[in-house]
């Protein structure tokens, strides 16, 4: 499976390199507790400076910010029930405010709220570099899109038992959605008009013994094109061809959201059990508000 052997096997066919956990985890680097005392931490997001954002979707009213140095502050208060966050290419912070049944964006500085869609219960979202917002609506089994011009439509319905976490490939050509109620992560091709095509249960998630419910939740992507999905059994990593790389143990029960942030976006942040943890990695994240980039290729490694 070493990449340099494959030309012998089949010239021209698409094969991927092995991506064991050892390419990501750093020996001796453990999870660090960054924040605690919340009801239900969620909605992890990052900016280009490595600041990390999260909410307390159960009890809180604010959007919290952790600086790369670990300084905690309230970025915006008075917006309860946010379960998904990401900055758009316009610099505004897009948010799923399910309890208020709306998708909004917040203008930095003024804190002004712009309402994009009402009458929906968005769970999690991703905004691409064109400014198209994709969000999951778990109960209706739908994936929605909102164009930069504000046109809202459903772009996928059914197949996924409880669509939840959502992310993109680094080149933003593939969109993935986790299934809280199933055992797959689904992949789609993002069409030029912002619709989705060719849904496929591309990744198979490890589930607890005796059930096909993965509790697959928050999802993110690193610069090498690996996908990370929180689940009942831990943080699951997949390679760009959908093969499980491994399960990273969660430092607390019920991990629900994940993002790369911190210095160099090289730290993986995890929301679990009302707390925020982070851990230094040998990888780093990508920001979808920035232009699409090709995935990096890690050095060959087989352990």
């Amino acid at each position, binding site marked *: 499976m*070493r990449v340099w052997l494959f030309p012998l096997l089949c010239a021209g066919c698409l094969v991927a390199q092995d991506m064991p956990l050892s390419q990501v985890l750093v020996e001796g680097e453990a999870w660090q507790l960054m924040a605690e005392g919340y009801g239900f931490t969620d909605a992890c997001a990052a900016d280009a400076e490595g600041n990390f954002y999260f909410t307390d979707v159960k009890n809180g009213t604010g959007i919290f910010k952790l600086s790369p140095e670990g300084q905690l502050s309230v970025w915006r208060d008075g917006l309860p029930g946010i379960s998904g966050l990401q900055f758009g290419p316009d610099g505004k912070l897009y948010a799923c405010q399910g309890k208020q049944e709306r998708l909004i964006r917040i203008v930095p500085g003024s804190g002004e709220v712009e309402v994009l869609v009402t009458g929906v219960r968005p769970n999690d979202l991703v905004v691409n570099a064109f400014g198209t917002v994709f969000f999951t609506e778990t109960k209706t089994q739908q994936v929605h899109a909102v164009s930069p011009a504000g046109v809202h439509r459903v772009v996928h319905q059914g197949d996924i038992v409880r669509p939840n976490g959502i992310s993109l490939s680094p080149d933003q050509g593939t969109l993935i959605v986790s299934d809280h109620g199933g055992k797959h992560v689904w992949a789609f*091709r993002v069409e030029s008009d912002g619709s989705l095509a060719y849904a496929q249960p591309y990744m198979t998630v490890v589930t607890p013994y005796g059930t096909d419910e993965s509790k697959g939740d928050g999802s993110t992507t690193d610069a090498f094109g690996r996908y990370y999905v929180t689940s009942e059994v831990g943080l699951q990593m997949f390679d760009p061809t959908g093969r499980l790389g491994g399960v990273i143990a969660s430092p607390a029960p019920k991990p629900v959201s994940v993002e790369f942030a911190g210095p160099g976006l090289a730290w993986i942040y995890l929301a679990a059990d009302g707390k925020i943890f982070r851990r230094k990695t040998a990888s780093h994240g990508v920001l979808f508000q920035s232009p699409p980039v090709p995935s990096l290729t890690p050095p060959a490694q087989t352990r």
Partner: protein
Amino acid sequence: MQWMRMTGVWLLAAGLLGITQGQDESYKKGPDSVRKPGVPQGTVTKAKWTESKVFPGTVRDYWIYVPKQYDGKEPAALFVAQDGGGFVTEEGAFNAPAVFDNLIQEGAMPVTIGVFVNPGSIPPVEETSKPRSNRSYEYDSLGDLYARFLLEELLPEIGKSFKISGDPRRRVICGNSSGGICAFTVAWERPGEFGNVISHIGSFTNIRGGHVYPALIRKTEKKPIRVFLQDGANDVDNLHGNWPLANQQMAASLKFTGYDFQFVYGEGKHSARHGGAIFPDTMRWVFRDWKEAK
């Protein structure tokens, strides 16, 4: 002197290592894998499959080999290879068209239509994006999806142009690495369609759950499948599993359950060299009684 002795040990170790590394490269194609003067040559035609319903959105190349002796009157045998592009090229480890030409002429295998299929990929919308590789999804997944792609989509289309035997004993499915476990899965799921499997350096490991086959083989009523396995002691050991151990487990399970199988275990690495070098003999073994099966 201690230093001298140590140096000697290191030189010996380096020498052994050299031998080991050389053993993969020592597998070379024999006379049956090259063109022989006077042997009729079949044709190889390249095509593209873009309309899959089993794997929506995928495109893939495939090649059809038709031997010179095929006349369309008698049904031909069938050989299907995954990662097909690697099997049809003259420079590749297999050079299957030349092997088939030689063996058909010799009578060691029947007149056989070869179908060499590449894995699918979903092309990107933007030129700057990468295609979504479907190889692992198609090859490493257990279940009948890939078998359905072959039997409901690709082969019926090819069957419109060629008369192909429906006897599973005259239908062979083959592959390397993930293509090897894929070949096994197709026959395992559809033994009435494919009665022969050839797997080189097969990925009977946990890429997508394929490590369970040795256990399944032992506790499933024997299926009418003839299985050829090849692996090498220097094949990979990685996050998905240990290829030499997995193939030994497969062989032990096939033996336990009483399958008609052969396991060639050499010194090779995760490459097609050994499988390619012995490919003519593998085809002879698979088709050793082909005249009894129509």
